[in-house]
């Protein structure tokens, strides 16, 4: 067997090993309230997917709400972060000024930010937006700022010699050079965003996946807590590693394959 085939079969095997261990533990404990087995969970997930849940809201409703919140707040945090990072890179005064506040924002624990946001702006969409922007934007800004500093000055000079106007300069010179940084910000920012949204929903913003975690947690319903967690994690894995990785690949086709690694 080739090295690659071995690796793939081990990877697939690892899934079965995990499910097997889980099954055995569940069997040994024989207590559905502590550790439901994989079959019970599969059944629970199926139930969640086909039957309406509490208050007659389906799983798709909650997933839709969480994804909607995630995408909107993520978009706002990214745009703000890119704008701040870029101005920091272009204007020294802004850099110095922001650099005195950003470390503070970066150390703020997420849970405190979420508490403050919903307290000040209410248990609603604005509250979750402020929480996400408060936590995620500084990270994005710092990342983009580093990208702006790493920009190749000689190419910018070239563009000036050929008299590229501001629009051309931003579209064809700045943004493409920032793109690797934007993408890396994109990836970690998305992961942060949906976790914050879920946390905010847990603390009382109505509906969404986090709301359902808490709902079943308070009823001590282990089966449904696990079912929701597994569904959620699978969904996010697909988004983070399937969809975004593909987008990123398309954006960097100008790099020769052998240089992709670096």
């Amino acid at each position, binding site marked *: 067997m080739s090295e690659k085939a071995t690796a793939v079969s*081990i990877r697939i095997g*690892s899934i079965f090993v995990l499910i097997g261990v889980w099954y055995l533990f569940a069997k040994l404990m024989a207590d559905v309230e502590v550790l439901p087995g994989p079959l019970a969970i599969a059944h629970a997930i199926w139930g969640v997917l086909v039957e309406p849940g509490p208050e007659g809201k389906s799983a798709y409703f909650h997933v839709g709400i969480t994804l909607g919140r995630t995408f909107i707040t993520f978009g706002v945090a990214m745009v703000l972060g890119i704008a701040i990072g870029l101005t920091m890179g272009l204007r020294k005064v802004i850099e110095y000024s922001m650099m005195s506040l950003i470390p503070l924002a970066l150390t703020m*624990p997420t849970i405190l930010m979420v508490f403050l946001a919903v307290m000040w702006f209410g248990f609603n969409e604005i509250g979750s937006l402020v929480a996400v922007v408060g936590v995620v934007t500084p990270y994005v800004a710092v990342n983009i700022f580093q990208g702006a500093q790493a920009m190749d000055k000689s190419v910018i000079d070239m563009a000036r010699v050929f008299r590229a106007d501001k629009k051309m300069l931003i579209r064809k010179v700045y943004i493409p050079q920032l793109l690797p940084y934007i993408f890396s910000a994109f990836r970690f920012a998305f992961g942060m965003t949906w976790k914050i949204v879920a946390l905010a929903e847990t603390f009382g913003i109505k509906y969404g996946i986090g709301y359902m975690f808490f709902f079943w*947690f308070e009823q001590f319903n282990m089966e449904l*807590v696990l079912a929701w967690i597994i569904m959620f*994690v699978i969904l996010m894995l697909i988004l983070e*590693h399937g969809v975004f990785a593909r987008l990123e690949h398309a954006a960097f086709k100008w790099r020769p394959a052998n240089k992709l690694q670096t």
Partner: protein
Amino acid sequence: MKSLNLKPGLVPGVVTILVSLIIWQVASLFFIPVFLPGPVYLIDLIVEVYSDPASYSVIWQTLTRIFNGLVLCMLIGTSIGILMGIRKNFESFMDSWIMVLLTFPAICWAFLSVLWFGLSEWAPMLTVILIVFPFVSMNIWEGTKALEKELVDMATVYRSDKWSMLRKVLIPQLMPYIFSAMRIALSLSWKIVLVGEAFGVSSGVGQKLIYWFEETRVDMMLTWGLSFMVLMVVIELLVFRLWERHTFAWRHQIAN
């Protein structure tokens, strides 16, 4: 002309902080302190809270949990990371699961550990361990892989056995990676422990935060949150700066 030897950016930095503080103070005048306390009010409150000796035991409980969690994370994370770096099959077995673990939100582990262990010491610790160790493993795994090729070459040249290679060559060279993993682990774990405490135990700073959150007392939340934040930043800076200088002394000597 020789100007004063000021760090560039000091003036705009200080001005920004002062302006922010003034805006905060002025904004606070329009609200009741329970909703939006100003910095002056907050300092008074912090002094008041910390004149009660009971507050120190709250901080101490949380610090203990962070420390225990950190030690366990580093042990588990480092061993898994090294194994992944030197054993190809183990790498294939683990790498997807590390990715999966990195996707888990802290809140999920907090709920699960409470459901499993009830309100016990284990709930916040398990949350910290399960969130932080994948980060540690990632770092160590990358470090080991970076060093592995050299190592294999050397092992064949000197015919050393695996165990002494590991102890005498790999671990010392891994120190920078272990160190940077430790930094990440510390800065993550104290934030995660707050989430774990908020749900899993009835003590510690995290519990204080959720208690005052439920009482809708922003002033008390900020008092606990900000003072703990400052403490952790000071710990991160002091401990790690000193330790880094100590551990990597030989590097500085080379650099000079």
